[in-house]
């Protein structure tokens, strides 16, 4: 094995080297591989092929071991005196003006805290639930119908009931729907918290209208394939309206939160809250952290 160079060795190597030792060429890996292949090929052809393979493999092993034990065979290669220039013609570096005091910065410089996403998601979930229940009341006279629809995405028995039971309370379906709705809303809220700072113009238009409509369109086009029974029971106007309601409310709540610096440039210890004075040099000083 070629040993890793220590720092001292690398210092020495910066001085003029005339020769370098490299592992010597060897035919034994080829012999061993050929023997190995013949060993197996003989199983399908003739025992004599396997015997030849075994002999070659043994010879390969012995030859290989003798080359590396007790000392690895190496060959000395003369160093070619060659001064390879490492230069560029692009001396002017264009910078995107992100902040006057910073030469470079990880973007985004500020973002919403995680709590903003959770708050937005929960607020959006309430808006969506209100619309969905209103739809249930108007269509079937019961708020439990849309709740059972939601539960049916993972719990098919929510749907395998009589029409009367479809509009009545069912504990398992209710618990499942609340969990699904809550988790889904919080995750989408977090996504909004992470992505809306990247959309400096009209974030509510994207989060409140475009994204929900695209999502509804995608579901509309594939739900008939994924779950035709469920697709038959969905009113797509109300579905889209409740998605838009979620998007607008979640987006507005997220946007109302105050942003915090991302601290992308800080070392992990500082971001983790560990007291480590002196780790961060002032910007532009050129000093490396010790």
């Amino acid at each position, binding site marked *: 094995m070629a040993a890793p160079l220590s720092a001292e060795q690398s210092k020495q190597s910066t001085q003029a080297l005339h020769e370098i030792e490299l592992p010597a060429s060897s035919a034994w890996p*080829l012999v061993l*591989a050929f023997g190995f292949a013949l060993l197996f090929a003989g199983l399908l052809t003739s025992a004599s092929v396997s015997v030849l393979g075994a002999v070659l493999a043994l010879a390969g092993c012995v030859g290989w071991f003798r080359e590396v034990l007790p000392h690895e065979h190496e060959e000395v290669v003369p160093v070619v005196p060659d001064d390879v220039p490492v230069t560029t013609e692009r001396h002017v570096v264009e910078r995107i003006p992100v902040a006057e005091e910073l030469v470079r910065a990880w973007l985004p410089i500020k973002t919403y805290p995680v709590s903003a996403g959770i708050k937005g998601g929960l607020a959006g979930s309430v808006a969506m639930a209100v619309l969905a229940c209103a739809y249930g009341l108007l269509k079937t006279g019961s708020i439990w119908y849309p709740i059972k629809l939601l539960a049916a995405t993972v719990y098919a028995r929510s749907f395998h009931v009589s029409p009367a039971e479809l509009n009545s309370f069912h504990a398992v379906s209710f618990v499942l729907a609340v969990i699904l709705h809550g988790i889904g809303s919080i995750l989408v809220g977090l996504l909004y918290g992470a992505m809306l700072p990247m959309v400096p113009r009209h974030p509510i238009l994207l989060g409140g209208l475009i994204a929900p409509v695209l999502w509804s369109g995608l579901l509309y086009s594939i739900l008939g394939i994924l779950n035709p029974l469920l697709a038959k029971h969905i009113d797509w106007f109300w579905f889209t309206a409740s998605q838009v309601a979620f998007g607008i409310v979640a987006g507005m709540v997220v946007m109302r939160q105050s942003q915090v610096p991302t601290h992308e440039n800080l070392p992990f210890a500082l971001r983790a809250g560990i007291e480590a004075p002196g780790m961060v040099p002032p910007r532009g000083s050129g000093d490396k952290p010790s």
Partner: protein
Amino acid sequence: MSSDAMAIHAAEVGAGRPWVQTLHEWVTTVDHKRLGILYVLLALIFLIIGGIEAIVIRIQLMRPHNDFVSPQVFNRMFTMHGTTMIFFVIMPVMFGFANYLVPLMIGARDMAFPRLNAFGFWLTAFGGLLLYFSFVGGNGLYGAGNAPDVGWFAYAPLTSRAFSVGHSTDFWTIAVLVSGFGSIATAINIITTVLCLRCPGMTLSRMPLLAWMNLVMAALVILAVSPLTAAQIMLSIDRYLGGHFFDTQAGGSAALWMHFFWIFGHPEVYVLVIPAFAFASEIIPVFSRKPIFGYPAMVAATVCIGFISMAVWAHHMFTIGMNSMANTFFVLTTMIIAVPTGIKIFNWLGTMWGGRIQFKTAMLFCVGFLFQFLIAGLTGVMLGTAPFNWQLGNSYFVIAHFHYVIVGGIMFCLFGAFYYWFPKVTGRMLNETLGKLHFWLFFIGFHLTFDTMHIPGVLGMPRRIYTYEPGRGWDTWNLIIGIGAFIQGLAILIFVANLVFSYFRGSKAGNDPWDAWTLEWSVSSPPPSYNFASIPTVSSRRPLWDRKHPEDPDNRYE
């Protein structure tokens, strides 16, 4: 390069010496660069062979009731095409690039185990030879030739002796087994090299993404190839020693083979695609003139993909009738793996966003990869949804999706890598005009073939079908698919011509033709056998940026 240096270099590469001596040097080499080139050449030869097999398949399917080849030959063609392309084209070419580039990029003089490196290459080469020896030896040395015809994933009970007489299946088993040992040897070498031979200053957080991704790929090779090797041995025991592992009539399980194969097969997709990600991660920043966006996220996403890819295999098996818990689990893991993959796509786009993009051929291929891989990911999510899969499993939709990943994703990146690193390997530039012609022809051919291929799949055309009745709505689509395949073949010929032409007549490259930032561009092209006269010391992820811009080095900000 000075005249002295040129003279010594010429002597080094063997100019003016008997060809036998040059051949001997190449055959006995343990140099990582030469072995890398040998891997790539081996893969290119098999690419031509596998490509011809693909063309035969497409000619056969271009019109209904065609009999260009017999059903038996057709079965051999699709089996050999799949096996060749996966095991003897893409894996070796990725190992070749890893071999060539990893030591150079981490500032090492060679791989950690140079002889093991040679052993791994030769095992792969002999594995490929064994596979193709089946054409003459498939029924035994004295019988008629017969190549494997059980499909590239060789499901039981088709591989049992009752349904697969002769030795064709055994040649498949042994060839994959032998090359698998070679793959494991190379993977061990890559892992050890990356972990132990980095130059001073190159911490893991400063390592080029290509090295990171090859590290993850190598770990996956060890985890994924081992079950396949075990399964191949079990299959041989079934066939010759009276075992019943996969014999359903004697208490065995055909599904067991599927589990063994796909616990290899799906991570294998990531074994192939992660190095392609690595190429994109090196090429896109250089031609966008910006550092990679979200380096830590890229590393984390790669490691995540490595872990999750070991838990998605049974999404290839939704149609066998697993229970709902298993279906749900594998649907969820398949959805989850789309997240780190999506992060990568965002980061590549983020790298390009606001950059001074140069549409050199290498970059064109990477941009093509970005959009095509996105589509491949979307159809992957569709197929990862159990109910959708029940309807389109084993149809041409699956073939279209898979080739979107392998060709639209991996091959595009691979071509990009050829255009990007060819100057380093040979000292000469690939011709840009021919390169752009290659790109556009391949792009058009690819989309004609594989966009179109989704449609007969949706219309119910099963994979591996020998021929079909007219009037099912498949005829025109198959004709278009065939035409696209020919265009791709033409593009590949242009690529090969470009390689040959540019090797002899290409313009001189210099050591750093792309104004790049990683260490391989700090040495001459081609690099000397020892790589670095003095081992470099680095202090950031872009060591050459630091040397080119001492007034504003990266290490102030990392």
